[in-house]
């Protein structure tokens, strides 16, 4: 265990317990995040039940192709993240770094695609306000929620990418050993951001296309 002693942090006396704590802490934090998004999903559900027709009309103007590409990118990034975690557990440092790098690239590709989609949305004036093209009025609520939901998800993803990059630096310079507790926390967070998208995708892109 000597090579692991520098992975141990205050106040823990053994690494197994520390890893358990990081996992547990991350799950509690994610419980909090679930409730954060739950308020948003709840608002969506309420407004959709009030304005079913308006939501159908509004959702038909979302860009399915970008959404679908992004779903594929993000699900693949979860795969590479899982491989990175397995590699870290097996202490394969270079493999861990490689797959973390791949995860970052997939995440960035998601953001680029999302940016292109936003550009298209803005071109079509799909921002609630005086130039908003759709009718009836409640379509504005769908698009307001669209911007908030995808925006907050993108912020979470950006934070995730940032954290993965920092972790790669720490691993690369061997400040933190790969098999420590860090990797698990990062992986759980990444999967969570991915999971949120799995719910966003049908609500935003598939709802208006039955």
């Amino acid at each position, binding site marked *: 265990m000597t090579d692991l002693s520098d992975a141990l942090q205050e106040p823990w006396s053994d690494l197994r317990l520390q890893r358990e*704590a990081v996992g*547990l802490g991350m799950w509690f934090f994610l419980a909090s995040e679930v409730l954060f998004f739950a*308020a948003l999903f709840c608002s969506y559900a309420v407004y959709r039940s009030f304005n079913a027709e308006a939501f159908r009309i509004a959702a038909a103007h979302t860009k399915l192709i970008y959404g679908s590409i992004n779903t594929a990118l993000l699900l693949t990034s979860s795969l590479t993240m899982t491989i990175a975690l397995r590699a870290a557990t097996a202490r394969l440092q270079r493999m861990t770094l490689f797959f973390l790098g791949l995860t970052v690239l997939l995440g960035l590709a998601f953001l680029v695609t999302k940016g292109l989609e936003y550009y298209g949305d803005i071109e079509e004036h799909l921002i*609630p306000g005086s130039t908003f093209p759709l009718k009836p009025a409640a379509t504005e609520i769908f698009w*307001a929620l669209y911007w908030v939901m995808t925006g*907050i998800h993108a912020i979470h993803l950006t934070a995730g990418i940032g954290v993965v990059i920092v972790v790669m630096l720490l691993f690369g310079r061997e400040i933190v050993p790969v098999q420590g507790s860090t990797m698990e926390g990062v992986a759980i967070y990444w999967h969570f951001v991915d999971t949120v998208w799995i719910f966003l995708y049908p609500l935003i892109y598939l709802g208006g296309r039955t």
Partner: protein
Amino acid sequence: MSEMTLPFAPAEHVGASSYLDEGHTVLSWLLTTDHKRIAILYALSITIFFFIGGVAIGLVRLELISPTGWFMTSDEYNRAFTIHGIIMVWFFLVPSIPATMGNFILPLMIGAPDVAFPRLNLLSWYLYVIGAGFTVYVLLTGGVDTGWTFYPPFSSNYSNSSVVAAAAGVFVVGFSSIATGVNFLATTHLLRAPGMTWFRLPLFAWSMYVVSLVMVLATPVLAMSLLLISAERLFGLPIFDARVGGDPVLFQHIFWFYSHPAVYIMILPAMGVVSEVLPCFARRRVFGYAFMVYALLMIGIVGFMVWGHHMFVAGQSPFANLVFSFLSFIVAVPSAIKVFNWTATLYRGQIGFEAPMLYALGFIGLFTIGGLTGLFLASVPIDIATTDSYFVVAHFHTIMVGGTVSAFMAGIHYWWPKVTGRMYHEFAAQFAAITMFLGFNLTFIPQFIMGWLGMPRRYHMYPDVFQIWHVLSSGGAAVLAVAYLLPLGYLTWSLIGGDRAGDNPWQATGLEWQTSSPPPKQNFLHPPRVTSAPYQYHELGRAREEGEPTSVSGQGGTS
């Protein structure tokens, strides 16, 4: 007793290496990851905000002496009570007991060297400071006038004050509570000393556990509600705008989904403190320990299901009103269990009237009044008559100020010798405790009465018939102000001139009393082992009668 099996070094030797001596520079405090120092950082910050919030309401009470107002415009008046609400709720009450006493005592109480994530703990304080920075900015830019509840459409479309900055401050400070909550949960799960089983946890530790759960699960919902009104205000996204089919009441639902559990965030820690203080000063084991734990858990859980009672008059369906009313009545059951158990703890105890006990007894009385008036408000017809009246104001202040602040003061006095190693002036503290109780009742009993008579809350001007009640209430507020300033004086004095406290001046059980005062950086020089349930005061009790504290085996250097 005998919760420790290892003997401790005498206090004189460890005194030299207490957590206070680990560095004297400002930086050694600002970059500390020691839970005890972070607790003190928190205590200083929340004290500053308590007095800012206090000045705001002092001005309001002064203004309300005259039925037509005399030195504020209505706009200034709105801003004064709003900043009072925002500061007192999020920058004092929510972090008050958990971030100070929870931070300091919880790890000691369960025999841990620190919290699970010490750096996250420091980060939570910095988040608090950033949130506080936003609030100071709001103060300097003229304040905010929406009331602490930020209801749209006023907050989203019409208010001309710093709504977004105020919301940002609350948003950020919310993440500070979440960080604290996550930390305490992981700490309680994984860092309990050997032998410290769940049902040997002192009730304060249990209250910290339950309150952490509520913080982690409720606070994010508040964050989202504030984010949505900010998005509406900044970018014109019409989420709560009724003109396009949005629903302002939806905001109220989301907001109160946090803010009702937040009431329990404020009161559960107070219950925890009182559950420590009462057995110690009555020299009795807590009555019905297991039920005290279940009651905490039940309040925490049912607290999530009652938010709708804030919307009885907001156009909620009668069926929803009925359900929320029923569930609100249910909360009274565990609350009553706690009150009866505290009372039963006193029965045949050897009660001493030291300051912590006076505050704790004050808590029980005021909490009972606050709780019983809560039953009035849980009943739909009475609530419809008293909605937005001073009756409601008096009700929740009785819980939050009469209850939580009393318990906060009880805890400060009870653990003061442990934190600082010094004793405070007992008579001064008893005097302050009694003054606070009297001042509190003088402030809020008139508010109950005028609320019942129909005086609405948040009104700047009022009919002359209410003046007598407003004047009485303002007089009470002045007494209360004195009672809050007194501890600032004698507690500060005790740091310089107070007698040295022994490791265990109250002859209390609990692991935190088994290490030196103030504790060393790593809390315990030898890892503690726990061999019995908490509150074993029965065997200790007689020691007071004989007038001489007996050293109980394993208690270390108490004398």
